[in-house]
């Protein structure tokens, strides 16, 4: 079966600074792959290149076997290659419902429709409420996003990506900045995502990484240091030295 996403020899240079060098990996259908690495390793840069907001210097990106390297970000998103952002990018003055409607409309490609009354667009609204229920947001549906707690905003962030019916989902620290007590809702939502969806997620919390990931990619200074199953990674000496650092030394 063809991979959902295949990254081949991706390079990115900003002048003399190399932020990605010869990155190769693939996500099979249904992948649960964690992308880890120290700050500044180039994790978000990699997501930016895959989704098309940043143009790589060299390399190709294949989406279900098709080279999409030249496609603009919006076309990739409409095809189901979607992401969330590390720093929440939701539409603050709009209500939760309008946020999700906005995403549904983009996916359907009906943004140019001038006269459809969104409040009475039953098919859109049913879909919106399905997503809100899935993310336990239905009670906040009519509230403006800027009146929500940060944890709920993170859920809206996730909802915006899910409304695009992703086939490949790139999550950039989905629970970043959310207190542990609230992050369980986000984690539950991610656990319940369809099994055939390919997910790549950046995460610093190792408990979350080892709970969700079936595969881990370790990125250091713009290149892949090692990748493998959680067991391989936790047993890898180099990773323990570079990434897990003093904590593991202390235990030893």
């Amino acid at each position, binding site marked *: 079966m063809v991979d959902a996403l295949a990254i081949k020899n991706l390079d990115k240079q900003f002048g003399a600074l190399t932020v990605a060098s010869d990155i190769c990996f693939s996500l099979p259908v249904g992948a649960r792959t964690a992308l880890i690495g120290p700050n500044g390793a180039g994790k978000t840069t990699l997501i930016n290149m895959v989704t098309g907001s940043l143009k790589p210097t060299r390399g190709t990106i294949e989406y279900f076997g098709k080279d999409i390297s030249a496609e603009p970000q919006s076309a990739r998103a409409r095809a189901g290659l979607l992401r969330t952002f590390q720093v929440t990018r939701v539409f603050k003055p709009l209500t939760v419902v309008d946020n999700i409607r906005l*995403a549904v409309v983009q996916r359907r490609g009906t943004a140019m429709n001038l006269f459809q009354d969104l409040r009475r667009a039953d098919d859109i609204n049913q879909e919106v409420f399905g997503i809100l229920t899935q993310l336990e947001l239905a009670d906040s549906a009519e509230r403006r996003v800027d009146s929500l707690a940060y944890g709920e905003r993170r859920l809206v962030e996730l909802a915006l990506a899910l409304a695009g019916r992703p086939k490949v989902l790139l999550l950039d620290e989905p629970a970043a900045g959310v207190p542990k007590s609230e992050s369980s809702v986000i984690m539950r939502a991610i656990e319940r995502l369809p099994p055939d969806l390919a997910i790549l997620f950046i995460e610093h919390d190792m408990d979350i990484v080892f709970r969700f990931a079936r595969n881990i990619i370790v990125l250091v200074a713009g290149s892949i240091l090692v990748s493998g199953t959680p067991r391989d990674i936790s047993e890898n000496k180099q990773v323990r030295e570079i990434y897990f650092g003093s904590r593991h030394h202390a235990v030893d």
Partner: protein
Amino acid sequence: MSAFPKSESNWPFELLIPAVGFALAWVLPDQLGFLTQIATTAILVLALDLVTGYAGIVTLGHAAFFGLGAYAAGLFAIHLVSEPISGLFVGGLAGMLLAIPSGAIVLRARGLSLIMMTIAIAQIVLEIANKSRALTGGDDGLSGIELRPIFGAFAFDIFGQTGFVYSVAVLTLCMFVLRRVMRSPFGLTCEGIREDRMRMSAMGCNVKRHLTAAYALGGFFAGIAGALSAQTVQVVGLHSLSFSTSAEALVMLILGGTGRLWGALIGTLLFMFIHHIAAELDPFRWMFTIGGMLIAVVLIMPGGIVNSLDQIGARLGSKGVRHG
């Protein structure tokens, strides 16, 4: 409950426009020309609100579409067909046909460079109109616009009664259409782009194409406003294309509140009345009054009158709920 109807409400609030319009005409029966001018300007400010308030494109050159619509409708009436309704569409179409290519140019830039380009394009159009004396009358203006009766029944009269009713009707219709557009996928997408382009793009939105469409629609309504002005005043001057027309429209919008259609209307009404009264009291220093008022509104009511009154209303409302 919001103090001003948001675009979500179902009520035909557009009908407030003729209600207020006719009340004003009853109080000020010898000021019909001035009230007509308010109605035409309000359409221009609504068009600007679509572009600036909803889609987030700050422009100081929207008079280009207003003026072009005015000249197009004037020339159409003089040389081709003197039927007014078709003249409105000709004006709107002219505005839109200029907005599409100029939008494609200015929307490549953002922020200050974008504003500068909108000014530049309006200046170019102004200069072309100024130099094409044979066609536009140059700085003498385009005169001799005679119109057939509206629907063949209502002739334009020297007291401006028909012109007033006509312009209120067109404004009401424009408001009716724009309120529906603003609750459509198109309107919501405009607001999304205004808030975060990058996010919209990551959700699959073709941002450039959408902004160009919004700019074109803004050009269409500004063109209708210009055409209405040409038909009711029966003269088109270079002033319709000028920087001050663009700037005043933006001031009216900021005064009333950007991103709210009612803000555009209330800003226009207030600005033009204060301008009118202040200029009558002191023809040389009325600018001080306007300037002072603008500073006061920006300081006391950031976000404009409509948005601030809504916030006050919401605060009172939520207090009421809390206490019982």
